[in-house]
């Protein structure tokens, strides 16, 4: 099997896609957005509970998608919980550059290692949108724009 496929479909990614974390709709979520990729029909709903000073107290999602999009959404909810809005946006910015292959010295502090698991996507340009769909939805949820599309 090709190495870049193993790199893309690492155990951690497959584990997150088969058993996504925070796969739920919290009743007390106060921000949410629906993400849609018209190319493949994948959908994701991202739910955030945002407290004072932009603190993300809870992050969750529901949706249908490929292993990459589910794993990315699952890892995202784990990472952004407990962060502030501006911290989450900064991580998204760096992550987007990482999966597009525009960033060689990716640094997201304690989350660097985890997000690097998805760096294999950069070898598969057709799949970048899968990896970023939930992140775009998170960003829209924080903006209070309830619908986003990758196109």
């Amino acid at each position, binding site marked *: 099997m090709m190495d870049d496929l193993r790199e893309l479909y690492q155990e951690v990614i497959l584990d997150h896609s088969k058993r996504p974390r925070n796969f739920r709709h919290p009743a007390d979520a106060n921000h949410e957005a629906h993400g849609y990729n018209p*190319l*493949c*029909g*994948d959908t994701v709903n991202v739910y955030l509970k945002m407290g004072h000073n932009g603190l993300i107290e809870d992050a969750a999602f529901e949706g249908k*998608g*490929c*292993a990459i999009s589910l794993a990315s959404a699952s890892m995202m909810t784990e990472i952004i919980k407990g962060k502030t809005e501006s911290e989450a946006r900064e991580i998204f910015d760096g992550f987007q550059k990482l999966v597009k292959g525009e960033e060689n010295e990716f640094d997201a502090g304690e989350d660097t290692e985890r997000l690097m698991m998805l760096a294999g996507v950069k070898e598969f340009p057709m799949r970048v949108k899968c990896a970023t769909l939930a992140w775009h939805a998170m960003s829209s949820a924080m903006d209070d724009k309830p619908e986003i599309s990758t196109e």
Partner: protein
Amino acid sequence: MNDMTTYDVEKIRRDFPIFSREVHGKPLAFMDSGASAQKPQVVIDTMEKAYLETYANVHRGVHYLSQVSTELYEGAREIVSAHLNAASIEEVIFTKNATESINLVAYSYGWANLKPGDEILLSTLEHHSNIVPWQLIAEKTGAVVKAVPIDEHGEFMLDAYYGMLGPKTKIVAVTHISNAIGTITPVREIIDAAHDAGAVVLIDGSQAAPHMKIDVQSLGADFYVFTGHKVFGPTGIGVLYGKAELLDKMPPFLAGGDMIERVTFEKTTFAKGHAKFEAGTPPIVQAIGLGAAIDYVNNIGFDRIGAHEQMLLAYATEQLKQINSLRIIGQAKHKAAIISFTLDGVHPHDIGTIVDRGGVAIRVGHHCAQPLMDHFDVAATARASFALYNNRADVDALVAAVRSVQEIFG
């Protein structure tokens, strides 16, 4: 019919230069011809020659090259007309693609003839290009779009269709072969019943043209559309066949040069026949390339192509069925060589990415047929679509690649 042993698929593959290349270090196993087919050398050469030696605009000049170019362009129309067994070359209109052909009929015939409450019957099998134009025309005219259902195998339900036909039915627009699952629809029965109800019928032959001989007079189709690039021709050229008595009464779709008889600022009169629907400089070299493609397939012969593809379909179906957790979507009795499938627990996009690394090119997604995906309760499928140049080694590569998907996903 010729004996199968006379079908030399390896010789045919050598007609297609693309098969000499590798993808990701593996021989190319191309099973995405349903999206767009590869091109034989003769089509490439014919188009190159047209640009190098005979190129000029058509229908305009009296100079030598304009005359030669016009003869080649109109020659392509004659090839298409003979291939479809149209009653006259005036019934063959060149468009950009099948989508434009359908839009032409919807906007010209549909807009002029539909009234509030009239019904347009489609089927659940349709490609979005045979749904959306009708929805837009329905909005403008007050007509209603209805879909004839399919059963659990993906068969067009004739009985339901007969029940839906009535005096309100004005247009029936149905695919000849489903792009997503390969079902061959009973077009003759569909057309006959529509005519009994007083409706006109458009058949979307985009997927049929590469696989079977089409005889529009024998079918009785009022409109028949297909696209050039799926039948081994270039992109940018499509065909609309329409019965002369309908075309004569239809208003133009696009307006401009070449489709007029006489223009003054007070009033314009339009050209007759196919010219009325070919405004502006047409896709000249693309049409010439399509003519070469149709000659190419007819030289091989659709009897032999059909038999070879059915052999591949049977072989691929049998091989794929051996794979645990693989589900074939669409098991109609009469199918073209198109197999849609899903794997339990694996999204089709992951299948597509992994098999691609094995040199296997298949389509994954909703195939621009979301109502059909909804019918089978899937968001997407993986689809292998075969053409005259595929061989058993392609099927073996597909099966091995799908097994590697299972290895990765455990």
